[in-house]
């Protein structure tokens, strides 16, 4: 998954990348594994600039699902900081570019929430509920959005 050009570009544009290798540096693995509660590999954490974890992906994923998870985490970081427009853009990018990824329905849901937060307009939620009728209708995120219709 790491050699994929899309993953490389996204990581290099959005993060300072660091790696702790369980076999090559077991002391570091013990130190940071305990600090960040990471006891299995692969575990990928997204940390904010203060070193606080805001997202994790555990276990192997195919490239597109993995990239979507990374994008989802980065979008949630903007969301948690109240950067609604940036978050919406990032969430939308996930289901537009990677519509078949497991994270796509969640991204559609949170894109709607971000728009609602930005505009304080409940029509954003209704539009999102409508969108779930034509895509990802069987997902748990469609159920969550159903209350908005």
């Amino acid at each position, binding site marked *: 998954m790491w050699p994929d050009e899309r993953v490389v570009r996204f990581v290099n544009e959005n993060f300072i*990348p660091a790696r702790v290798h369980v076999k090559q540096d077991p002391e570091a693995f013990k130190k940071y594994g305990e600090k960040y509660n990471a006891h299995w590999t692969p575990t990928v954490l997204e*940390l904010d600039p203060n070193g606080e974890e805001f997202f994790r992906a555990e276990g192997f994923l195919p490239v597109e699902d993995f990239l979507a998870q*990374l994008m989802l985490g980065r979008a949630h970081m903007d969301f948690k900081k109240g950067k609604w427009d940036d978050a919406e853009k990032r969430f939308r990018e996930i289901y537009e570019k990677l519509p078949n990824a497991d994270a796509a329905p969640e991204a559609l849901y949170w894109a709607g929430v971000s728009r609602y937060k930005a505009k304080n307009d409940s029509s954003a939620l209704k539009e999102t509920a409508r969108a779930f009728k034509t895509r990802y209708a069987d997902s748990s995120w469609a159920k969550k959005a159903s209350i908005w219709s």
Partner: protein
Amino acid sequence: MEIKFRHDVDSVLEEAKKQNKPVLLDFSAAPM
């Protein structure tokens, strides 16, 4: 094109704070 993972995690965390940039921390057992 590749990801240049760093292994000096403490330095990365300090740099992240200075640059106000997030960190991606990969715990791996993959062959290198």
